[in-house]
């Protein structure tokens, strides 16, 4: 049995809620067999009680034996804050594979939200942007937050062009608390500019990870004959010959990916390339890794 459902299979599930539950439950069930990750409320340490601590966390058994008050701390109890920045520019509607980049990004965001809210009880928020912020759902762990987030994802239709500068500046103003910021985009911009724009998020103590969503055809472009290509964002058209697409284009794209990855890592940003024909577990695993790192 296939452990993770392919995006093509997921596209048949109309409800994002159900989709996210399917993905995450499957993912978590798989984690139980893994020795590397543990996120349940396992014991971490004892800490001396200080006034102001919640008396509910005092280990009264220990107090009975030692007559001292200690606070029992667990790994999972430290709440984190997940904010997903979703690129909804026109280029995201490209769909050479079974699902478009936008749909894949939606599945990814929904799965992250589900994992964060339902499983980790973390606060989660959403920013949908293109050349400006189009949708903002404030991070929260309250009841109904999941529904708001999914509604935000549903409304996120590709539009306009990508511009990281403006929405990220706005985002910096919105972030008051440290957490995990996930940027989901196809990153059709100069790597220097991308990193330079996103890097300030790190300054607030956020863990930032870039999910680079690309269509397989964008990485391994193939043309049977000379074709007219149209840019989905600018509507510009040029004619391209197959030899160029097969050689120069692939080199340029590979260089772009590698440059973005190296510069992101150099700036302390996480980076993960996701192709729309791959299962979502890579992204979920990345998130959990980051969260664990943040807690430790």
């Amino acid at each position: 049995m296939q452990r993770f459902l392919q995006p093509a299979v997921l596209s048949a599930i109309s409800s994002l809620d159900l989709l996210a539950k399917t993905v995450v439950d499957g993912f978590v069930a798989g984690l139980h067999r893994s020795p590397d990750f543990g996120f349940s409320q396992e014991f971490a340490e004892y800490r001396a009680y200080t006034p102001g601590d919640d008396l509910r966390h005092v280990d009264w058994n220990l107090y009975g034996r030692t007559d001292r008050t200690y606070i029992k701390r667990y790994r999972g109890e430290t709440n984190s804050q997940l904010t997903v920045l979703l690129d909804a520019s026109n280029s995201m509607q490209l769909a050479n594979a079974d699902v478009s980049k936008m749909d894949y990004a939606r599945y990814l965001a929904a799965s992250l939200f589900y994992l964060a809210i339902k499983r980790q009880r973390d606060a989660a928020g959403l920013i949908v942007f293109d050349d400006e912020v189009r949708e903002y759902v404030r991070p929260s762990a309250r009841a109904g937050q999941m529904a708001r987030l999914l509604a935000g994802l549903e409304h996120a239709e590709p539009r306009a062009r990508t511009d990281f500068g403006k929405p990220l500046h706005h985002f910096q103003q919105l972030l008051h608390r440290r957490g995990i910021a996930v940027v989901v985009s196809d990153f059709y911009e100069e790597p220097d500019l991308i990193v330079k724009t996103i890097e300030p998020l790190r300054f607030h103590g956020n863990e930032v990870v870039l999910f680079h969503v690309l269509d397989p055809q964008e990485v391994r472009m193939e043309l049977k004959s000379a074709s007219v290509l149209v840019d989905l964002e600018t509507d510009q058209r040029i004619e391209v010959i197959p030899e160029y697409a097969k050689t120069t284009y692939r080199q340029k794209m590979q260089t772009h990916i590698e440059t973005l990855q190296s510069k992101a890592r150099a700036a302390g940003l996480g980076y993960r390339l996701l192709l729309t024909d791959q299962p979502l577990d890579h992204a979920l695993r990345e998130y959990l890794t980051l969260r664990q790192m943040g807690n430790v």
Partner: protein
Amino acid sequence: MGFLAPWFLGGLLALGVPVFVHLLRRHVTVPRPVGSLMFFERGTQSSTKHRRLKYLLLFALRAALVLLVVLAFANPFVKRPAANPAGRLLMIVLDNSYSMRAGTRFNDAKREALEMLAKRTGSQRAQVIALGGQVQVLTQLTDDGTQLRSAVESTQPGDGHASYGELARTLRSLREGSRQPADLHLFSDVQKSAMPASFADMVMPADVALTLHQVAKGSPTENWTVGSVDAPAEIADVKDPKQSRARVTVTGFHARAAKKSVSLLVNGHVVATKQVDVPENGSATVEFAPLDVAYGFNRCEARIDGGDSFAADDVSYFAIRRSDPEKVLFLHGIGDTRSEVYYGSALAAAARASFTLQSTSAAAANDLDPSRFAFVVLSDAVSLPSIFEHNLQDYVQKGGNVLIALGTAAGHHARIPLWGSDVKNTHSYSANAPAMVGQVDFTHPALQDAQPGRDNGGWAEAKIFYAAQVDAANTRVLARLNDGTPLLLDRAMGEGHVLLLTTGFDNLTNDLPLHPVFVAFVDRSARYLAGAERLAGSRMVDSFVTLRSGNASTANVEVIDPDAKRALSLEEARTAQTFHLERTGFYSVHFASGRDAVIGVNANRLESDLEPMPQDLQQLWAGSNGGETQEKAAVAGVAKFQRVSLWWWVMLLALLVVLAETALSGSYMATQREDA
């Protein structure tokens, strides 16, 4: 250059279709979306230009295809000077039919043919063909002048009836596979009666230029002939006024009214001469009776006095065989008493048959020898003594004939003697709805009727109440009932024949004996079964005589021609099945069955009508194949041109264009699918 069918050039309007499709209609290209063009550069090879070039090539191919198809329908041709005479074949056709015996026609034709051969250049190949009752190719294509001349000189006038339709058919088969054009020169009296029923049948092949050389020009000369002789082939009683007579019809073609004397010659001696007044362009009949002929075969001639230029047709030959009345063995079943009365009465009433009936019960036939009888009739006699049946089988194998009538006894006793198969079933029809005779084969000698009327020659009035169903395999069905049941069948067995009537001769199983057609049937079938028709009488030139019936028989046959010479070689005498009667006069024939015959052979009387084909028809015939005759070219004094049609080449080119267009459009469509 020109077009044989220029109206089809209107089809060039169809060129508008590819023009619209390629040049006027906008091409819709589907661009391929990409997320960003930041890594792309404009290709050095312009795909649009590439496609436009491909479109233009496709357009040119399609336009060329339309153009070529239209041109092919318009049938373009080029005029080329006709090949020099040495490049054309020369075909000399010499008419040696019966009519060419009139006057000096044949000699004139032969002389003109020799003159034509003398004009031939040394390298020109030629062929000599004789047109008589059959078209004979006398030489192969050759440039040997001596051979050609000797072929013409050795040709003798024949007695056959020429047919221009047959000539055209032969030429068509000769010209198959030959691309060299031919000039055909026909030396003939161009007789009108030699034309086939349809003019189209005598049209020459397209590459044959026909030139007619009419040897007898002017109005046709008057001619009288013995049109027909109505005389019995066999006679028993020379004093019987019904049998012993010969009616001679004298016919005049383009002749004034005249008194002609007609003589009857028997074995070379004039026995009677009579005068007859022949009307203008009409016929008159004179009767000679009684015919006092000796026993055996008598070679008779009806001859009219001379007075016209065509003496050969003034005589008609026929043979009469005189013999005592022959006996017919009539075997009937035990309960069958009426059949003998009806059959015997009909046989006696028959005008031309001279038979005596010997009737006996089938059970009492043991001691009888069938070979002593002209033929044997089995009437409802389905059970024969085994010895007699064996003798009867031998009799049939050696050439004897048997008539079997199946009465009601056939229903009880399924086996049919001699026939070789059983009665399958019997049909009984009610008196209110009897079966009628549906089909009758009037070409069979036992039923012969030249012009059957609406009543099916009298058979339609007969009502059949009872008929047996028999196996009709390997038989000739001569008559059927209207429900398809065979009524009369003929099966060849060895040298003999068995006629099978699936109903009886009495008036219980049918009412056939009550109708006049019964007498005619008994008369003709008796003559057929007795073989009288084959043994004497007269035939037409080019007819055939059957010498033996079965392949198994190796008995020698013999044919003595009118010159009293053996017509067959020893090899042919042992194997020949038929003999072709190709001359007028008397033939003596000894058949494989041991019988002898003398047959008088006469020419087709259509040959006696010397009227030539009308001049306009001659011109139409000479120009009917689309070619130009040499005569016309000579009169015009211009070089002779021939039109060479190019449509075949144009269609070939169109086919190549179709293939190229298919390949190109196929690759283009494949590209479009990949792009999509």
